[in-house]
C-alpha cells in the first residue's frame, strides 16, 4: 500500500467515523504488516481509546493540486480575462484575472486539489494536536522567493498577520479569527497575532482559542500565500503590479496600457523538475468573453478565463456543435435574491416563502444558472440533495400571500452594477402572476458597493457570491450568520449562529456535514432569500492546449497546462 493510498484511507476513516477495528481490517486487507498496522491504529482516536498528543494529519504528497499527465515543456501559454486586473497583492486581489492568477506567482502552506481538498504544498507536514487547538507546520527547506532569498517560518507569520490586519482590510481579515490574539491584532490593540509563532526557521505554529477544522482550507487560499516582507515594504504601492512570491512563474513585464503581463518560468520553483510546462505566460485582461472565445477559436489565445455563460449565444452554438474544446463546470458561485427582512411585508416568513413558491427557478436555466433551489452548491459539505426546497407553485404562493394579508404589492427592484437585468426580468414576470408588481430601476452601484445601504433603498435585490473558501463555514461567516459582513438582509437566526460556531470545531467530516445540512434546512424554512441555484462556468480552449481543466476554487492551474 503506497503512501497515497494510506492517506486516502486515513481521510476516509475520519470522514466516515470508521472504527479502529474497521480501519485495521482495511489495512490488513491491503497487505500491511501487523506491527505497522497496530502502530498506526494507535494514532486514531477511537471511542474508547486515549488519543496520542498529536497526530500527523498529513505528510506531503509529491506535488499538490489537480492531476496532470504527459506534457512537454516550452512555449507561451495565453489566456484572457474580462475584468480589469487591479492588483496582484494576495489579500487584496478580487477581480477574476487578478485573484485567479495569484497561484502563478505565489504559493502557501497548502494547496487545493481538483476536488477542493487542501493538500500540503510548501509545508512538509502538518501536525494537529488531539484537542484540535494547535497546528504545527514543518516547512520544506531550500524554497526561495523570486528574489532569491530562502523562505522561512517568519515569512509565513508576516504574511498571515498582514492578511488579517486592519490596515490591509482584506475580505479574509477574519478568517483566522480562531487564532489566539487575532481579535486584539485585528482591532489594532496588538502589534502581532500572538497565536502565530515561528518556532524555528522551518517550523510554524498556530495556536487556537478553540478547535477549528477550517484552518487547512483557509491556509490553502491565495490571500494567505507567503510573501517576502522586504519586497513588500520596498515596493510599497508598486507591489500590486510587481508580485514576488515562491510560485511557478515570475513576472517579466507588466504592460498596464496593453492590459497584459508576461511571466516567465521560475527556474527555482520547488517543483521545477516537473512544472510548470510553459516557459512563459501571456496574461491578458479587459477582454470581453465574446472576444476571448473568438481569439481562442482562432488560436490567438489558449483559453478563456472568463465565464462564457455570460455570452449565452456562444454557449448555445458550442452545445449545438458539441465542440470538443468547450466544457461546462459546476461552480461554487451562488445566485439568489436577498430579501429585506426588516421591511414589511418581508418580515413575515409566509410572504418570503410565497415568493419562493412564486418563482419558477427552471427558467433561470436560460441564464446558465443551475436551478437547484438550494443555497449551498452541490458538492459542498452539508449539501443535502434530499432537502425539501420550494417547488414552483404559484397557487400556493397566492394562498400564502392571502394568509399574510398581502395583496396588490408594488415593489421597486434594482438592476445593480451594470447587470444585464435578466434575472430581475425573470423575477418580475413570475411575481406578476401572483399579483406582485415589480418596477425595475437601474442602479449603477454594485450590490457590494451598496452593502448595508441596500436595505434602506430596496425591498430585494439579486446577488451572486463566488466562494473563495470551499467550506460552508464561509457562507455562515460571510452571508447567513447574524450580522455577517455580507448579510444585507437584516435577518439572523440564533440556531444557525450556534450551529455554525459549533461546526468549525467538529473534526468528523460526516458529523460536520450533518450540522451544515441542518443549517441549510433552517435557512430554507426561514426563507430570507429567494433561492435560485449556482451558475455554470463555461470554458473554451484552443486546439493546441493540453491537460486543460477547471475547478471551482482556483479555476485554471496554468502551471500544468501545456501546448501540443
Amino acid at each position, binding site marked *: 500500500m503506497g503512501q497515497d493510498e494510506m492517506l486516502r484511507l486515513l481521510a476516509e476513516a475520519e470522514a466516515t467515523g470508521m472504527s479502529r477495528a474497521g480501519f485495521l481490517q482495511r489495512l490488513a486487507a491491503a497487505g500491511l504488516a501487523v506491527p505497522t498496522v497496530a502502530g498506526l491504529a494507535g494514532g486514531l482516536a477511537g471511542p474508547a481509546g486515549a488519543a496520542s498528543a498529536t497526530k500527523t494529519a498529513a505528510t506531503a504528497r509529491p506535488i499538490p493540486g489537480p492531476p496532470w499527465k504527459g506534457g512537454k515543456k516550452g512555449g507561451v501559454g495565453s489566456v484572457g480575462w474580462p475584468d480589469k486586473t487591479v492588483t496582484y497583492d494576495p489579500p487584496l486581489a478580487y477581480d477574476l484575472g487578478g485573484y485567479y492568477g495569484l497561484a502563478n506567482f505565489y504559493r502557501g502552506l497548502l494547496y487545493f486539489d481538483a476536488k477542493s481538498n487542501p493538500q500540503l504544498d510548501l509545508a512538509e507536514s502538518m501536525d494537529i494536536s488531539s484537542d484540535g487547538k494547535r497546528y504545527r507546520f514543518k516547512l520544506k527547506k531550500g524554497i526561495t522567493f523570486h528574489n532569491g532569498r530562502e523562505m522561512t517560518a517568519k515569512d509565513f507569520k508576516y504574511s498571515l498577520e498582514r492578511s488579517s490586519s486592519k490596515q490591509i482590510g482584506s475580505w479574509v481579515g477574519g478568517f483566522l479569527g480562531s487564532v489566539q490574539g487575532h481579535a486584539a491584532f485585528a482591532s489594532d490593540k496588538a502589534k502581532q497575532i500572538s497565536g502565530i509563532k515561528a518556532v524555528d526557521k522551518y517550523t510554524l505554529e498556530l495556536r487556537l482559542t478553540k478547535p477549528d477544522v477550517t484552518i487547512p482550507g483557509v491556509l490553502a487560499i491565495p490571500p494567505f500565500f507567503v510573501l517576502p516582507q522586504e519586497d513588500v515594504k520596498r515596493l510599497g504601492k508598486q507591489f500590486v503590479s510587481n508580485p514576488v512570491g515562491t510560485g511557478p512563474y515570475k513576472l517579466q513585464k507588466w504592460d498596464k496600457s496593453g492590459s497584459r503581463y508576461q511571466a516567465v518560468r521560475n527556474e527555482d520553483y520547488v517543483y521545477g523538475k516537473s512544472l510548470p510546462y510553459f516557459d512563459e505566460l501571456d496574461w491578458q485582461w479587459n477582454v470581453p*468573453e465574446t472576444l476571448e472565445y473568438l481569439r481562442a477559436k482562432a488560436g490567438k489565445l489558449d483559453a478563456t478565463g472568463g465565464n462564457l455563460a455570460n*455570452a*449565452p449565444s456562444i454557449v448555445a452554438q458550442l452545445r449545438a456543435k458539441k465542440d470538443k474544446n468547450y466544457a461546462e463546470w459546476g461552480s461554487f458561485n451562488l445566485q439568489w435574491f436577498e430579501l429585506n427582512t426588516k421591511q414589511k411585508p418581508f418580515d413575515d416568513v409566509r410572504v418570503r416563502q410565497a415568493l419562493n413558491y412564486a418563482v419558477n427557478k427552471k427558467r433561470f436555466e436560460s441564464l446558465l444558472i443551475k436551478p437547484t433551489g438550494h443555497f449551498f452548491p452541490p458538492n459542498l459539505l452539508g449539501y443535502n440533495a434530499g432537502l425539501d426546497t420550494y417547488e414552483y407553485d404559484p397557487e400556493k404562493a397566492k394562498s400564502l400571500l392571502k394568509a399574510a394579508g398581502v395583496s396588490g404589492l408594488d415593489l421597486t427592484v434594482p*438592476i445593480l452594477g451594470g447587470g444585464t437585468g*435578466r434575472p430581475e*426580468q425573470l423575477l418580475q414576470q413570475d411575481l406578476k402572476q401572483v399579483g406582485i408588481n415589480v418596477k425595475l430601476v437601474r442602479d449603477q452601484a454594485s450590490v457590494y458597493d451598496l452593502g448595508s445601504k441596500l436595505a434602506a433603498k430596496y425591498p430585494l435585490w439579486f446577488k451572486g457570491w463566488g466562494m473563495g473558501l470551499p467550506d460552508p463555514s464561509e457562507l455562515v461567516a460571510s452571508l447567513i450568520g447574524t450580522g455577517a459582513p455580507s448579510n444585507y438582509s437584516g435577518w439572523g437566526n440564533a440556531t444557525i449562529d450556534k450551529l455554525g460556531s459549533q461546526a468549525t470545531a467538529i473534526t468528523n467530516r460526516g458529523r460536520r456535514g450533518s450540522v451544515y445540512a441542518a443549517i441549510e434546512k433552517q435557512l430554507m424554512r426561514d426563507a430570507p432569500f429567494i433561492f435560485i441555484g449556482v451558475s455554470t462556468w463555461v470554458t473554451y480552449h484552443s486546439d493546441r492546449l493540453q491537460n486543460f481543466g477547471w475547478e471551482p476554487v482556483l479555476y485554471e492551474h496554468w502551471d500544468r497546462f501545456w501546448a501540443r
Partner: protein
Amino acid sequence: MSVTVSPAETYSFGDDAEKPAAGRRVDVALLAGGLIVGFFLACAIFAPWIAPHDPDFQQADGLDGIAPWSPFHSHYLLGTDELGRDYLSRLIYGARVAMLIAIVPNALVLAVATLVGVTAGYAGGKIESVLMRFTEMAMVLPAFLLALALIAVAGSSLGVVVLALVIVSWTYAARVVYGEVLRIREATYVEAARALGAKGPRIVFRHIIPQLRGLLITYFTLNAAFMVLTEAGLGYLGFGIQPPTPSWGAMIGSSRDLLFWPWLIILPGLCLATLGIGFYLLGEGLQRRIGPRIHGARL
C-alpha cells in the same frame, strides 16, 4: 409676401415663398421621409392592435433550451430575444419610445430655444448678452456626458430621460433661433409695426414668431433624428428607458454579449437607422419647401 428693402436684397417668407408650379416633380426626399416617419408613427399609435404578442411576456416556448427562436419561425416572425419575448412585438412597441422621444423632448427643446432666442434677439442689450453668453457656456459642455451624469444622479425614469435630452439639446436650437430673430427684427415691416406704436410683445407674437414657423418645423424634424439616436445611445449604456419596456437602443445594448444571435442587434439597429434617415429626409424636404430664404435660396 415679398418686400424689397434694398436694391440688392429680397426676403421671402413662409408658404407663399414657393408654391409648387405646374409640372414640378414631387420632392422625393419629402415623400420618402414622410412615408418612413409615418410608418413608424403608425406602429407607435397602433402597436396594441398590430403587435402579435405582448412585448414584455417571456413566452414559455420562446426559448429552445437556452437558445431563442431565430427569425422566420412560424410562431415568432422575427424570432424571440434571450428571455423568449417576441421580437417583432418588441420592435413595434419600441417605435412608441422612439416617437415619444422624437416629439416630446424635441418640442420642449424648441419651446426653450424659442423663448431664449427670441428674447435675446429682440431685447438686445444686456439681456441679449447675458442670455447668449449663458447659451454659449452651456454649449461647450459635453452633451452626452451631461445627460449621463444627470440620469446617474436623478435616476433613469422616462421623465428624467426627457429632461436630460432637453437640457443637452436646447443650446444649438437657441442659437439658430437667435440668429434668425436678429435678421427678422430689422425687417421693414417690423419697423413699420414699431412706428405704428406696436409694443414689444405684440411685435414678437404677431410678426416675429410666425416667421420662425418654417425654421422651427424644419429644425424639429432634423433634431428628431438626433433625439432618437441620443436616447438609443443612453439606452445602449443602460441609462435610458428601463426594462422590460422595449426601446431599440436598450435592445441593442442588452444584446451586445449575444453576438451569435445577430438579429437581436441588427433588427433594432435597422429600425433606428431607418427612422433616422426618414427624419433627415423629411427635414431636407421641408427645408426646401418652407424654410426661410434669402435671394430665393433656402437658408
